[in-house]
């Protein structure tokens, strides 16, 4: 199943092994969506359904996607988990505390925009993509993970040029579920471009939150923003409440 945590945070599992995407940031940044205290505690302590997590992924270092302490806590409580992060993000993790076998369990990458990298010996088939967050922003990586035969792609805070995505060959990934920040889906035309480039079967729009995000678009309520976005393409589905899950079977 694939479950929403909060903001751009998701959890996917085949029932035996799980992966967390951009979910370990605890109280994050002021104004952005956060998981409940109980969900954060379970993730950080690797309890219940999160005991099976093998991969914790953070697309970039912004505090609404990862914090050193939350990432470190998960790795401290779950010897079987590895972290996949950017080289920049690794600099933040050193401030969050020590991790046993950090040199082998914290895997950091710098992937140029428009390129991809297939990882070997991972718990799931994984490919990383260099995807821009925008000029002057942190390095951002996307990840494609195949879970029970379904490929889920999380693109982080994508603010990318179409030609860079084509160069990265994202369409070859045969994506089943594309986790897409809402600002890439603001119009029907934008969604046509997204579907042309990614060719994903299903798009999950994410990273809604702060109210001022909606206000930027001249919309006062996030709910109104969501409804507009959900009507911009037939393959967009709602997965926007904490621990709302869909089956991957």
């Amino acid at each position, binding site marked *: 199943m694939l479950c929403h945590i909060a903001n751009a945070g998701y959890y996917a599992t085949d029932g035996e092994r799980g992966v967390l995407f951009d979910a370990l940031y605890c109280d994050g940044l*002021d104004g952005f969506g956060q998981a409940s205290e109980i969900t954060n505690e379970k993730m950080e302590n690797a309890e219940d359904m999160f005991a099976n997590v093998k991969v914790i992924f953070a697309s970039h270092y912004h*505090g*609404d996607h990862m*914090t050193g302490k939350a990432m470190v806590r998960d790795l*401290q409580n779950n010897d079987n988990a590895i972290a996949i992060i950017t080289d920049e993000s690794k600099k*933040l993790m*050193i*401030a969050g*505390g020590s991790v046993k076998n950090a040199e082998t369990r914290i895997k950091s990458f710098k992937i140029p925009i428009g390129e991809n990298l297939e990882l070997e010996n991972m718990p799931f088939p994984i490919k990383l993509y260099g995807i821009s967050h925008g000029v002057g922003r942190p390095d951002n990586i996307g990840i494609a993970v195949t879970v029970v035969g379904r490929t889920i792609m999380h693109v982080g805070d994508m603010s990318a040029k179409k030609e860079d995505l084509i160069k990265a060959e994202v369409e070859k990934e045969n994506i089943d579920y594309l986790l897409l920040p809402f600002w890439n889906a603001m119009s029907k035309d934008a969604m046509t471009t997204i579907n042309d480039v990614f060719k994903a079967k299903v798009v999950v729009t994410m990273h809604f939150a702060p109210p001022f995000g909606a206000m930027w678009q001249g919309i006062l309520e996030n709910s109104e923003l969501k409804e507009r976005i959900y009507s911009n393409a037939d393959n967009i589905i709602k997965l926007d409440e904490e621990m709302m899950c869909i089956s991957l079977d």
Partner: protein
Amino acid sequence: MYFLRLIFSFFAFIPFTYGQEAKICHIANTGFYVSDGEKGALLDALYADGMDGDPVASAALNERIETASGEFSNIKLVFTSHVHEDHMKAKPVLRHLRANLNAKGIMPKQAKIFMKAGGVGRENGRIHYEGVKLGEVRELEGYAFPLSPYGLSHGACNEDISNIDIKMTVAG
């Protein structure tokens, strides 16, 4: 009547003396607050819930510090020695700087990426990212207190952490 006047004088005097008193106060861990009675500084004190296993200030005290309330409304300087989370976190530092437009920050250059991760915006203009080298000392001007940052090692096994010391003069 005399007694009433005495009581009034007493209570009127308290805030005055309270406001004029130079002091140094412990916050938690290596966090301190110093004040000459009119203006204050926070040293390694803005890290909220910090790092597991290390002491943290109470939630009530952290809230007063972050919102620049009460005696913390007079803060002119927020100093951070290094980026370990039992000394600083971007979010509480930013909360204070946003609540207190009179405060300036001094922190090592290494902290710049942490502040970006915390969403620093226009507050960045009030933050000085100090790059003093190990064994060297500098003097900074334009602050509410005379300040000298020193480059001091965090020690073996922490070579990847930039650490700065600060000497400041408060009420002489």
